[in-house]
């Protein structure tokens, strides 16, 4: 190696050279990330200020008109309210069930691996296939739920055709899908708590509920925060499950299951109102960012013993 580059390199210390190579390697994913995620996101913000129907090249600047139209659209608010309903029903259900199953699994001495696999299978099942099976399961005419209800002499409503129930019927599918993932996360969190804390507390006379409240829960805080933030993002971005559960009428009867992402998809890629769709995306982005920051500040507590 000769020339100025060679000299400069020889002048660097080993430490500096190591740092340099670390940053060089980090730069590759960074460039990728900037090009694939950040640039299009910035592009969406630009599009949200223009009127554009994809088909034409005409892209007049319209200022905040797209935001005004989206925010005055009844369907947008219905989708936004629905999205919050999904989150309000789904996140607690997923966390509580996931935690309960994880605690039980930790006690299971035998077949633990089998149980974990069983709970994890839905997470790796293609969601579109699952959605179609669940539609049959919910069928009031052919589904096992309706058969069971019939045996017990209970009414069997058409869950996916009833506006007040359809959203929760889809939430159940999402909870089922993510439960295994949630269990694994909680199990990892539980394993990370050192046994000695429990032993020390037991020596001091602490028993069952106290151990759980003062050791398990606080030391699981990081896991809990991650789970809540992750689940929030999942529920606020719901799309595939919703689209496939009521495929013939996307968004369910009278829009009762539509989500913000489905609203964006319909507006942008079915109706080609790209500007408005981008505006709705920006609103969703702001909401997601706000929620995530809020959760991180409110929920994060450092716990040390």
């Amino acid at each position, binding site marked *: 190696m000769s020339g100025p580059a060679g000299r400069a390199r020889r002048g660097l210390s080993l430490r500096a050279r190591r740092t340099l190579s670390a940053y060089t390697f980090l730069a590759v994913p960074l460039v990728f990330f900037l090009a694939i995620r950040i640039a299009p996101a910035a592009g969406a913000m630009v599009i949200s200020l223009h009127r554009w129907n994809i088909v*034409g090249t005409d892209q007049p600047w319209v200022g905040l008109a797209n935001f005004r139209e989206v925010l005055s659209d009844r369907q947008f608010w219905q989708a936004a309210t629905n999205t919050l309903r999904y989150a309000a029903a789904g996140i607690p259900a997923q966390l509580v069930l996931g935690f309960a199953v994880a605690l039980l699994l930790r006690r299971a001495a035998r077949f633990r691996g089998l149980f974990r696999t069983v709970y994890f299978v839905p997470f790796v099942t293609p969601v579109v296939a699952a959605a*179609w099976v669940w*539609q049959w399961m919910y069928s009031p*005419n052919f589904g096992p739920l309706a058969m069971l209800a019939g045996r017990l002499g209970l009414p069997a409503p058409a869950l996916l*055709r*009833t506006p007040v129930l359809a959203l929760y019927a889809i939430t159940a599918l999402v909870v089922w899908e993510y439960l295994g993932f949630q269990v694994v996360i909680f199990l990892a969190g539980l394993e990370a708590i050192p046994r000695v804390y429990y032993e020390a507390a037991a020596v001091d006379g602490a028993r069952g509920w106290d151990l759980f409240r003062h050791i398990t829960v606080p030391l699981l805080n990081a896991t809990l925060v991650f789970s809540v933030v992750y689940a929030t993002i999942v529920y606020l971005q719901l799309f595939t499950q919703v689209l496939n559960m009521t495929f*013939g*009428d996307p968004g369910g009867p*009278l829009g009762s299951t539509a989500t913000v992402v489905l609203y964006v998809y319909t507006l942008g890629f079915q109706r*080609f109102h790209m500007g408005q769709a981008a505006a709705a995306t920006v609103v969703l982005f702001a909401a997601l960012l706000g929620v995530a920051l809020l959760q991180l500040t409110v929920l994060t507590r450092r716990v040390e013993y």
Partner: protein
Amino acid sequence: MRSAWRACGVAILVVVLGATAMAQSQPRVTITYWQYYFESKVKTMDTLIAQFEAKTPGVHVVQETFPYDSYNQKVASAIPAGQGPDVVNLYYGWLPLYVGSGYLQVLPAQAFPSTQIEREFVPMIKAAKFDGQYWALPTAVRTLALFYNKDLFSRAGLSRPPITWDEFRADAQKLTQRDAGGRITVEGFGIAPNGQDHQLLREILFRQWGTAPYSADNRRVTYNNAQGAAALAWYTDLVTKDKVGVIDFFPGGNGYRDAFNAGKAAMIVDGSFAIGAVQSGAKFPWGVALLPRRTAGGAPSNFGSFWVNGISRKATGPRLTAAVAFLKYLTSPDVQRTWLRQVGEIPASQALAADPKLAQDPVYGPFIASLPYAHATFFVDETAQRTIMLDAINEVVLNHKDPKAALDEAAAKEQKVLDDFWAKQAHK
């Protein structure tokens, strides 16, 4: 040694120049054709392209296909990005957007005179006319008809398909089967608002009950009146009062057709595009009949739709000439006949449709007989307009809303969609 190199160089030069000269003496134009992937359509198009190229020396056509679900998005975004087809296959309902945005160019009047088009093609073709000019033409068209399960009909003691809607309703009641718990196990009518029924309501029931769905200039919604409400009430009664069908009986966008093929729906209203799926799916004798009418002597009506081929603004110069020749070929009677035989879609030409052999075909006959009175809805935003009609039906079925109130609400929403479209047109 040096002279050997020189000789070699001269030889290469001669070969290159010669090749260029030969290429110039036989000009070769390549045009691109896009359609969505449907096996029989793609294969038929391959053979048609081979025949066209044999007849038109110097023109090469490349066919490219895309999955149906993403086709419209793919087509829409291609031309503005400077790529895409010269000749493109589009659903007629997308035309207002594509024409309004300058994606397509008008068909050259010399090659495609309007008067000749209107003389030769079936009437629904007018949905491809804007500003008094034609922008695209179909090879084939589709209409609706009644598919019925002959086994279930004979078991219910019915000897023929219904002729009036009253008969249809009575037949559907006889055909419906229920289990001990009262749950429907076989639908008399495979009701499907999100299948073809929203079209049935818009272009057939509304008209037969006495109201046109839209004004003649397609600018105003006109179905929200007593007649429209009576038509909607008659349709929704099939679910709420007569209980001869269940919405989403089988899940999925084509659930009603799956139910028919499984022998779980005695009748469905479906398009000629469903013939193939029923032929391969239904394992029982079935028939096709004209859609019923309000009264035996009353006026028939039907919904027509079609896929057109248009020329994008990308095609210029020799490529435009080639594209025009290709489009001429695709709309010729010969190709229409091949298309019917191999794809199973009914011809867009009046003369072919009037062919008595075709009209008497037990399967194609009813679809072809409906051509003269088939209306192709002038969609300006098909997704939105479809949802509005579905919502009107659901408001009555699920929320027990008064049909007139549901239609008033739908009309207000749809009028806004139409107004938005026409306002943008006026700006151009």
